[in-house]
């Protein structure tokens, strides 16, 4: 799957968990999910669970620890999809 297609599928999942004071337009690949987009650690877990369902992959604890930005998420998803292929 291309990076663009992953991002297109990932974007609405992230937007769903943004706090009310963060506009959906603020999401871009370089943004830090917790520090810049203000998603709390509990909702970050929900983002990951929704990503697992949407892409049919499974995150490990290590993946969770390396997840900081939207780009990190895309890289992890890409890696998981390639492992399965």
């Amino acid at each position, binding site marked *: 799957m291309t990076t663009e297609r992953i991002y297109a599928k990932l974007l609405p999942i992230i937007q769903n968990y943004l706090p009310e004071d963060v506009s959906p337009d603020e999401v871009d690949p370089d943004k830090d999910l917790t520090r810049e987009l203000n998603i*709390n*650690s*509990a*909702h970050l*877990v*929900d983002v*990951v*669970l929704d990503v697992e369902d949407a892409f049919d992959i499974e*995150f490990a*604890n290590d993946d*969770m620890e390396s997840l900081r930005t939207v780009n990190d998420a895309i890289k992890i998803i890409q890696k998981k999809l390639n492992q399965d292929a």
Partner: protein
Amino acid sequence: MTKKFQYILDQLPYKAPFRFIDHLTHVDEEGASGTFTFSETLDFYQGHFVNHPVTPGVILTECMAQIGVVCLGLFLAASEKLSDTATVALSETNIVFHKAVFPGEKVFVASEKVYFRFGKLKCKVRMKNTKEEVVCQGTISGMLIQPDL
């Protein structure tokens, strides 16, 4: 039965007047149950409401969270050997209230795990009164915090 879970009660970071659990009746991987009796002498009844004491919804929510989520979280942390100093921070609640709880009433709380992943414990929790009526129910989530890691 209660003694088996004493280690969980001993780990709870609460005490009166903010401990809303008397007995932990059951805990396993899938959920926790316990009871609490709201003493007529609890301080908040003097103000909620004037001349008409009713247990505040936030206190019922706290009672459900302490029994259903925190006790279960401590059990899961212990069984996964994560930490014996773990605690649980409330992250979100969605509760519907059906009945009032008056001073002196005993309540029964039971939770059912929805998931426990990456430190987040999400539970369905229900509180019943002695008439077996549902007092309130909904979902509560908490994050397991491990200060020594």
